[in-house]
């Protein structure tokens, strides 16, 4: 293959990564933006989504699309419910203290990971894609399913954006994010908003995982890379900024796809992590964020 088509392939792979990453990071960013909680267990919600997707799609016989669609609906709901319980039982009792919640979510990370290992096992298991149509480009064939991931992610991101900016629910969330005390004074049940946002954040990660699992496989350690990449995206995009998150996800996904096609993936990760740490040190508001109030 020549350099041009090679680059196109890398860019397509990068876009698929970006699409999944944007959803995952959006969940992390919402939770941080509204609740000021750094959810270290976010990657484990992602993993749970994938593992549940495998469980659901194997439980349902018939056409693979049927099982996949069921997983796409049910898995995020279960993950959201688990997150809600965790939020009620632990985070709320800590009064959302930033340091205590980090320690607590680290605890959740270990608990979820170990339970997944105990009940699901150490194997990586595939989920059949709902359809296997290949789009033939002049240089190579490309999986139609992968392209549909990009479309689905774009759709979901637009929907989230519309909810946040055009509906009453979104208004309440933004009010809580802007100033939770004043919001409470205006009769907003801040505690319930926090519970909802934490569940929503986990559900976004779970949806992203269900989308990616037909091309990557479900494994109990699969939450670690998305967690790190989501951190990177949220930091580059500016903590709590939706537009910045999406832009940063595309940027990171594309560069990750292209760099790891031409260099060693470990080296790509080293460079990316180091760059992001430097961004955080020298430009804490992120590349696209505005200075914090």
């Amino acid at each position, binding site marked *: 293959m020549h350099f041009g088509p090679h680059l196109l392939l890398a860019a397509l792979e990068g876009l698929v990564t970006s699409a999944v990453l944007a959803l995952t990071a959006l969940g992390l960013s919402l939770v941080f933006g509204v609740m000021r909680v750094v959810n270290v267990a976010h990657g484990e919600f992602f993993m749970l989504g994938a593992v549940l997707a495998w469980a659901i799609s194997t439980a349902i016989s018939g056409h693979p699309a049927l099982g996949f669609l069921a997983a796409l609906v049910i898995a995020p709901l279960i993950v959201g419910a688990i997150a809600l319980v965790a939020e009620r039982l632990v985070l709320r009792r800590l009064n959302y203290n930033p340091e205590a919640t980090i320690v*607590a979510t680290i605890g959740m990370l270990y608990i979820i990971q170990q339970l997944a290992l105990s009940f699901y096992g150490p194997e990586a298991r595939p989920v059949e894609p709902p359809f296997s149509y290949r789009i033939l480009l002049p240089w190579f064939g490309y999986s139609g399913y992968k392209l549909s991931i990009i479309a689905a992610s774009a759709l979901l991101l637009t929907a989230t954006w519309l909810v946040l900016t055009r509906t009453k629910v979104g208004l309440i969330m933004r009010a809580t994010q802007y100033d939770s005390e004043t919001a409470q004074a205006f009769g907003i049940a801040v505690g319930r908003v926090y519970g909802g946002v934490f569940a929503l954040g986990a559900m976004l990660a779970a949806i992203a995982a269900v989308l990616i699992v037909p091309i990557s496989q479900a494994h109990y350690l699969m939450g670690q890379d998305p967690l790190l990449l989501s951190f990177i995206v949220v930091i580059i995009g500016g903590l709590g900024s939706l537009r910045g998150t999406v832009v940063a996800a595309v940027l990171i996904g594309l560069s990750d796809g292209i760099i790891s096609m031409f260099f060693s993936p470990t080296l790509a990760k080293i460079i990316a992590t180091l760059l992001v740490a430097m961004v955080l040190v020298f430009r804490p508001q992120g590349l696209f964020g505005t200075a914090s109030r």
Partner: protein
Amino acid sequence: MSEASPAKAYALHLGIIALLFVLSFVLPEYYHGLLARIMVLAVFAMGYNMLFGYVGLLSLGHAMFFGAGLYGAGLAIIQLGWGVPAAFIAGIACGAVLSLIIGLLALRTTGVAFMIVTMMFAQVFYLLILYFANWTGGDQGQVVPQPARVLDFGATALDLTNPTVRYMTALALFSFVLLVTLAIVRSRYGRVLVGIRENEERTKMLGYDTFSNKLMAVVVSGTICAASGAAYALLFGYVGSSFASVQYSILPLLWVLLGGAATTIGPLIGTVFMYYVIDVTSGYTSAYLLIVGIALILLVLFFPKGILGTIRQRWLGWLP
């Protein structure tokens, strides 16, 4: 804090050291080896406590300082063929230099950003170990050969693989670091650190340069952790990337939280207790990470001061 009872505090610490010394002759073989390991890891926890307990800086990347000591000492022997003392010093020096660099960068941030930045630097350190696998041994790790772990004094040779020598070396390091920590905590400098933890702005207003005080604390903390890592490599003879992974940044946090942050003996108690819990439960389940997770959550929910912190608050106000 104690004004009137320096003698009491020093007596308590010397008593603990004496107790550990006596235990060496009493304990059965299995616990003897385990306690040696625990003492080395308790040094790691004490280094962590220096920063987290006394300055209030929560780092999620201390595994890189432990790893710097571990690899600094281990690779000096394996790759360069250095002797034990030189390797030990090399490990400590690696940790000191690394903590100075990390401190200069990470201390520009505060709060949550500090935690994430330290975690990311530690991740870079971990990935670098994997990337230079043909030098470091990658995720397989490397064994420090037994003949290289002998301290040669000409007439007498100390074999660090001998259980008694190993125990006593670990105890010596532990005692040294424990007394140094106690001295630091009781000094003027230690009080400035606590002042920074309680109210950094006010400390600054009183004329203290908080940045250089914090930087000093990061270097002291990182160097102690590196000493622990270097000792681990020399005493237990294994150098592996898992010791630099995120998990080994979380464990000292857990030990310190459990024993009691900002207490000098808390790190030891937390480490002992956690190993004891894992040892007891390993009969029922292999899922030790589950216990770590549950312990972390229960601690922040119900016992934020840890064992010794609670004891100090309720009964023994003079505990350092």
